[in-house]
């Protein structure tokens, strides 16, 4: 591991914290470096050498399994092994397992390692790295997620939108609104996940500015969130959906009716039912007999 130690230090110092040349004097010492040096003096309580060897071996299937095993381990050495392997460059087939393993025991040094893969040439690697970064409160992690929303590949943008929603990254709202305007479903879903009453109102105001189907989807998903409320806020959302002429509005409201019990009576549900009846010319509850 002597070789990997110096490589790790070098790579972390120069490659993991953004443009190395722009702020050479300000580049902070990577947290992992010191921690690793200290830990390096201790003998691991559990022998992980087989897993580590497999992780760094040519057998990709075995490497992926080893990453899973190391990720599941609570041993700091297991986490370090994953970080080392990522620093030295893992094949794309193994990265997702390594990211998943890291996230199981998140630590600050992970962010730098994951960010390096967040701009990887392989879209699936980027998507996985961005998804993992959503689990870290580090501002650099959030920046990477937001950057992913601008990615040229749709699947990476979708992963970023999902990550932004999961991480409730406020800085992601504006770019996600722009993606919503372009009709990106993942942005609608991400916004719905992170929307508070203020964001929900902002979304409702987007009628005419974004595709109706995307807006209906976002508002419908917000309605269905059990943590969104109080009910007068849901009523506002229902009324906003009611203004959408596209049939997706009825779908969103029907989904809401399907997802909520009829009793106790909820004004937002009644409002939604009224709108659906008006649109369809009958009671959806009576039609399918759901939620009685």
């Amino acid at each position: 591991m002597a070789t990997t130690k110096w490589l790790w230090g070098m790579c972390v110092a120069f490659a993991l914290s953004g443009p190395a040349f722009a702020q050479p004097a300000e580049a902070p010492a990577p947290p992992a470096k010191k921690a690793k040096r200290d830990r390096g003096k201790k003998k691991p309580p559990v022998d992980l050498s087989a897993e580590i060897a497999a992780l760094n071996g040519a057998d990709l299937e075995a490497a992926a399994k080893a990453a899973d095993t190391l990720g599941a381990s609570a041993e700091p050495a297991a986490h370090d092994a994953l970080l080392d392997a990522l620093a030295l460059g893992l094949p794309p087939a193994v990265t997702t397992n390594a990211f998943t393993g890291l996230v199981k025991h998140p630590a600050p040094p992970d962010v730098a390692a994951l960010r390096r893969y967040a701009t990887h040439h392989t879209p699936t690697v980027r998507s996985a790295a961005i998804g993992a970064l959503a689990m870290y409160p580090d501002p650099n992690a959030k920046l990477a997620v937001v950057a992913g929303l601008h990615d040229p590949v749709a699947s990476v943008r979708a992963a970023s939108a999902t990550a932004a929603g999961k991480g409730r990254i406020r800085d992601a709202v504006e770019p996600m609104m722009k993606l919503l305007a372009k009709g990106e479903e993942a942005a609608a879903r991400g916004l719905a996940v992170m929307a508070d009453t203020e964001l929900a109102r902002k979304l409702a105001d987007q009628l005419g500015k974004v595709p109706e189907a995307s807006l209906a989807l976002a508002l419908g998903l917000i309605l269905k969130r059990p943590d969104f409320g109080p009910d007068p806020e849901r009523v506002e959302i229902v009324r906003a959906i009611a203004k959408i002429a596209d049939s997706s509005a009825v779908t969103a409201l029907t989904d809401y009716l399907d997802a909520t019990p009829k009793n106790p009576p909820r004004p937002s549900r009644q409002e939604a039912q009224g709108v659906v009846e008006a649109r369809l010319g009958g009671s959806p509850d009576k039609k399918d007999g759901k939620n009685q």
Partner: protein
Amino acid sequence: MKTLALTTIGALALLAACPQKRVFQLSSDENNPYMLKQTLDKRRLPTQPIPVNDSKQPRVFVVTVGSPKTIVAYDLASGNVMWKADADVQSRISVGGDFIVALEGNQLVARDQARGAPRWKASVSGKFVGAAADEQRVYVVYHAASGYVLAAYDGKTGAKSWSADAAGELGAPGAHGGVVYVPYLRQWLSILDGSTGKLLTRIRGIDEQIAMLDVTSQRAYYGSKQGVFVLDEKSASGKRADATYGKVKIPPQLEGTSYGLDVYDPVQMMYTAAERKRVLWTTTTVDGQLQLPGEGYAIHYFRYVLGFDTKGELTWAYSNPRVELVASDHTGSAIVGVATNGDVVALDPRDGSVRVRKSLGTTQPVLGATFDADGWSPSGQVEKSDTVAVLVSIARDRDARFDRVKELAVRRLAQLPGPEVTQHLLAVIADPRQPQRLKDTVVELLMDRKDGSSLPVLTSQLRVTTDYIANTQPESLAAVAKGIAGLGGTKLEPKDVSAALAALQLHLEAAATSSGELVQIIAAMVAIGGGAERPVLASHLLLYHADDNLGDDAAWQKAIVVALGQGGPTEREMLRYVAHDPRTRPKLAALIQEQLGD
């Protein structure tokens, strides 16, 4: 006696009506130094260049499109239209002392130069080849059924003065100072007495055809597309080496440029596009050698007039606004041109600044023009020369006909220092409408510029990244990187280098950067980094050494391995590690081992 007198008169009349014995023959005295000197001495030439017209005023006679066409006579000195006249002009206009002459319909028509009214008309008994005029006479070459004929007419009356038959093809004539020059069978230049039609002498081109003739008030040039002889006593040699002969460097991009009309080309006897590709020069003879003035020469090429020094380097450029110049001339002190829209411009031959810009006020497009403006030297300056701006406008011209000229412009631009020039060159690369060949040229030029002050400009070009939301993409990333790589070994400001490396790193690590671009970026970082780039490149190699996509790209492999192979022990140790890592792509590992000599 009366009968005898009548018989004599009749015989004389018959003689006059019949052509003389053939003046132009295959066998004849030629390249005779004595006769040539006698002939040259016979010419009555002005001591200074002056117009042919009796008023000695600089004039231009313009033909505009229409049915019928219109002749516009314009006084260049006063800036006034002298007259306009509808005329079915079928040839170039020739200017005499107090008349002009041209083929109108199928007749030779002389017009009063001061008023434009027809003065006389003469039938042309054959196919018109060309015409010329001096102060007194009109000389016409035509191809009759019996062969080629040169005929002379009195400019005032239209009376036929004489005619001369030829045993072979004659070219369009030229005239001045009482003699007429006629190219014959592409081999000879015959010189005849303008008043009698007598062959004075003739010159045979020994190592070059004689297919071009350009006659000014003082000099006669003859030759071909290869080069030009000045008619003087040395012309008797017939050889380039022993004559007063010269040529200028015509850039290959200005294809088709000539020194004058091809006198054997019937198409060029009318105003054509051939006149829009012309060397414009004035020469002197010093110690028997053709010499250009200090400012060099110019080339009119469609919309553009480009000035070249005596070594052939582009020194200035003029771009006529919007439309082409259809005719041009070098008066000795100015370059004059007429544009399609009727604008008349006079340029300073030293720097291309505009001394005069006037308008003929024509409503129809100009077809062509004949200048009679030798010696005209307009004073003043209405527009300063801005060669950089003109070169930029040429480079960014969207007219596909000028792609080669654009190449010439960018090559000259690239020779100029300064970041703004770099900016202009980059704009050419970024323009999607520019041809790839031109862009490739600009990239090469950027690499060769070695202008350290351009680094910030190149760096700023790297600010644009691929952004789906903003709908942006890097502009000419590989080209910019090549431009930066070209600065290797140049003195650069450390802060500029740091900024450039940071910008390059941004693209090195960007997902959308192609492998081809990565190769250029790596080269650029190595060229200017001075070793500071190696940790970033090492990280890059580690990230992709086991990648079955980029890691297998041969060009990328070579670029990154060579870049790090130039490093110190640390980089070599890292390369060894990668080479022995079982996950490393096989060809990459082999390349590293080859690089390290392991």
